[in-house]
């Protein structure tokens, strides 16, 4: 194992760390976790898979790291001095067909063991085939990074990547702190203007007050569209929002779905919606596998716009355009860099006011498009992210092999069964 020098965390990583701690305190142990599920067209052998995972993990000491501070109080990811091989659990679950989704929910709501950031589960439904799920901690991997991690593991299993060629460990950088601080302050104006315009005094509508209760687990509803349904949905995106305007259309669809919740109907005010965006370049790099590269857009939608579909989409496109023009996601990343010097307790206090109506996450086309895993075909791949209690409800979209997965994630107590059905139908039919 090589490259054990500490890795400096950037502002986005620091934000995730503090949110994770707050979430763990709120839930009694489960932090900001997520899960990728690969629905395979055959049975993966648990023994050989577990052996491959252990050999793979041995090349990645970053999996053994923990949050620490350097002598100047800067947050770092410190890996142990003593040579130790990271261990990743691989657990097997044989379940009835009807209990598969409930099992997946349980897995992502189970706390990690200390020092653990990734766990694999092989779920064998009674009808045959297999689901391979990877539960991961957002402190170490974001959604796209988790797909890269799986892709790397797949190459390792296939023998296409030799251990010595495995070069996904992040480089220990030497940050230029003065420049970063200058850039952070320079970005404050852009961040302040957007937050002031879109969040403060907005009459924000929220429904998850009960869902904030300690220990409430997260739940999911997922809808996988077939190829024809996906084409129809995509045609509506092109027709109503424009070419390559999936993001504003999906946001509009989520706004419409959120407005179907009984507690929201008829209320005046605004929806405040953070939406994640990936700051990785299009050039693929294994070096971008670990830690967070997701920044945010902030959208504000007055409920008066909901009755006019084209006006709603146009409004979201305008905000998307203006924030991109102002470079808001990059400004937000640089600005968050300033918070690394803030003691974690104070930052948590600041984060207490970090609320939203709901969030939207769009992963885009999967890196496994047209591919296989461990020699088995992939029937579907979907993400099931736990939504932090501060947000309460989240909508997520991903695509693989010409099929769109759309889902909603919420904390127990924030939605009724009737709400979830209404939301799911509204998402699909928008």
């Amino acid at each position, binding site marked *: 194992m090589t490259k054990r020098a500490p890795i400096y965390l950037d502002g986005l990583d620091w934000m995730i760390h503090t949110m994770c701690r707050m979430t763990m305190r709120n839930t009694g142990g489960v932090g900001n976790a997520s899960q990728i599920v690969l629905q395979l067209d055959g049975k993966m052998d648990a023994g050989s898979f577990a052996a491959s995972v252990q050999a793979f993990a041995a090349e990645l000491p970053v999996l053994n790291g923990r949050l620490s501070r350097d002598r100047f109080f800067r947050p770092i990811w410190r890996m142990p001095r003593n040579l130790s091989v990271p261990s990743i659990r691989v657990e097997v679950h044989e379940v009835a067909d009807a209990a598969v989704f409930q099992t997946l929910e349980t897995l992502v709501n189970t706390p990690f063991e200390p020092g653990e950031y990734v766990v694999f589960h092989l779920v064998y439904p009674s009808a045959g085939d297999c689901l391979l799920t990877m539960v991961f901690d957002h402190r170490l991997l974001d959604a796209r990074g988790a797909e890269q991690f799986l892709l790397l593991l797949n190459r390792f299993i296939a023998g296409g990547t030799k251990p010595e060629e495995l070069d996904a460990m992040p480089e220990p950088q030497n940050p230029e702190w003065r420049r970063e601080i200058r850039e952070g302050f320079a970005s404050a104006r852009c961040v302040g203007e957007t937050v002031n315009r879109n969040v403060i005094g907005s009459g924000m509508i929220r429904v998850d007050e009960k869902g904030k209760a300690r220990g409430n687990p997260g739940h999911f509803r997922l809808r996988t569209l077939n190829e024809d349904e996906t084409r129809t949905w995509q045609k509506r995106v092109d027709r109503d929002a424009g070419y390559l305007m999936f*993001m504003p259309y999906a946001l509009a669809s989520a706004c419409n779905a959120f407005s179907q919740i009984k507690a929201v109907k008829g209320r005046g005010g605004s929806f405040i919606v953070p939406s994640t965006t990936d700051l990785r370049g299009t050039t693929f790099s294994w070096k971008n596998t670990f830690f967070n590269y997701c920044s945010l857009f902030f959208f504000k939608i007055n409920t008066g716009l909901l009755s006019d579909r084209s006006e709603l989409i146009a409004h979201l496109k305008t905000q998307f355009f203006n924030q991109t*023009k102002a470079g808001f996601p990059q400004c937000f990343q640089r600005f968050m860099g300033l918070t690394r010097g803030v003691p974690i307790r104070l930052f948590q206090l600041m984060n207490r006011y970090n609320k939203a109506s709901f969030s939207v996450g769009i992963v885009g086309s999967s890196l496994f498009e047209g591919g296989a895993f461990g020699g088995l075909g992939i029937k579907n791949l979907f993400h099931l992210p736990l939504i932090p209690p501060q947000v309460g409800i989240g909508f997520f979209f991903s695509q693989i092999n010409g099929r769109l997965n759309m889902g909603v994630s919420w904390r127990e107590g924030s939605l009724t069964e009737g709400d979830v059905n209404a939301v799911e139908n509204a998402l699909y039919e928008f």
Partner: protein
Amino acid sequence: MPSKMRSMNFSVQFQGTGVMDKTESELKGRIAEILSVNAEELKHDVPLHTMGLDSMRMVELLVFIETKYGIDLMASDMQREDIASITALARSVERMKSA
């Protein structure tokens, strides 16, 4: 057709092609920057999404078009075929510039 008229038409067409080439080249250069690839790798007539452009990067391109040419394509009624390739996009930009 009189020879004078013929040469005038040729001149207009030649100028138009030159402007079109320049716009295509500028757009191609910007797309290459956005995608972090060599401009030579990009073809003029293939759909933008097959090059790797997504919503975020498309909007970055539209911001460039607004800043460079003063045209707000985001708010226009452009159809997919008007902006789906570098050539189509350049043609639309030229049309809107002269409108």
